[in-house]
């Protein structure tokens, strides 16, 4: 009987230690994922493709000013469409990053915030977060044109009205990856990863 007792006790201790070790290893995988994979805005869904002309839409912003999205830009500036919603906590957490980006990229980029839904809620959201410095569009058509399914979502259109990059944006890094995409001429992080894989495979052959 004592032998069984001791063996069970020791086995349980061993199992418990193993469970903790497995858990720690799994956590390590998460850390490795963060380190090895460059974060980038994930492209999902259909809609216009990168490199194609963005759909031209004539819209009005919250203040009532006319706003054209897509098409050749008269002022030779690119446009970043940022899709958000007052009910999306992640969008809210990204607003400081958006403000910072608007300051740092102002020499070539216009920011347009796009949302959908009840106007009074949008006005309250704009007032609450002091978004007066942005063009703020409330339009279902705009979201449909780019088939935005998840928020926050960003679309980058260059000065010729060509779609440069787009994707789901969950962090500041995702947002910055869109500017990087414009500078390097690579549409998405997935393309970048694929090209790299091609290169290494080519090297091995």
């Amino acid at each position, binding site marked *: 009987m004592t032998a069984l007792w001791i063996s069970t*006790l020791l086995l349980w201790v061993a199992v418990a230690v193993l*469970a903790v070790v497995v858990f720690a290893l799994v956590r390590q995988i998460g850390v490795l994922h963060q380190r*090895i994979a460059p974060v980038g805005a994930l492209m999902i869904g259909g809609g216009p493709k990168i490199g194609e002309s963005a759909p031209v839409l004539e819209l009005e912003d919250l203040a009532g000013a006319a706003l054209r999205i897509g098409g050749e830009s008269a002022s030779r500036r690119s446009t970043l469409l940022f899709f958000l919603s007052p009910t999306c906590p992640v969008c809210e957490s990204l607003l400081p990053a958006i403000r910072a980006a608007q300051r740092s990229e102002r020499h070539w980029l216009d920011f347009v915030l796009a949302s959908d839904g009840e106007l009074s809620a949008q006005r309250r959201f704009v007032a609450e977060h002091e978004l007066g410095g942005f063009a703020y569009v409330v339009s279902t058509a705009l979201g449909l044109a780019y088939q935005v399914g998840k928020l926050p979502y960003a679309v980058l259109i260059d000065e010729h009205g060509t779609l440069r990059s787009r994707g789901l944006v969950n962090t500041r890094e995702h947002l910055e990856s869109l500017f990087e995409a414009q500078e390097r001429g690579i549409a998405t992080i997935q393309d970048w990863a694929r090209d790299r894989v091609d290169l290494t495979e080519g090297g091995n052959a």
Partner: protein
Amino acid sequence: MDPVVGHVCRGVLALVFLSAVAHKLRAPRDFLATLRGYGLVPDFAAPAAAVLLVGAELAVGAGLLAPATQRAAALGALALLGLYCASIAINLLRGRREIDCGCGGPGARQPLSAWLVLRNGCLALAALAALVPSSGRPLEALDWFTIATAAAVLYVQYLSSNLLLAYRPRTRALA
């Protein structure tokens, strides 16, 4: 069935449900967003549904620990797991895999997959085992040790499985 099995099942389920309550209360807005993401409750009813769910999980988690309420709580756990299973299955059938499952708390975004249905099935199996009448064998000290360690180990493994499921899209992207 031996009473140890029932106790272990109740212990794990209580840990799972109470930790679920804790991470929901820590980030109530994220939970609300997750709930809306499922697209099963009308928008205006979502806050009420959220309160209801958290209340139910708390009642089940705490109820499993008290001998007087453990049967009712095990039935409640079965009902909740069934509800979650159905919600996940409906969204899988709708093709909306990319919404957050809400299983691992706000830190670990986890897309929907068939694995979650399987995992919930295992938890439901534990709830069923907790309902089977026990043989009434008197428990000795070693039994209590077995119950405590087994429940803790299984719970840690549940956490590991949550993390692994959360990493799956990223692992796939690398492959």
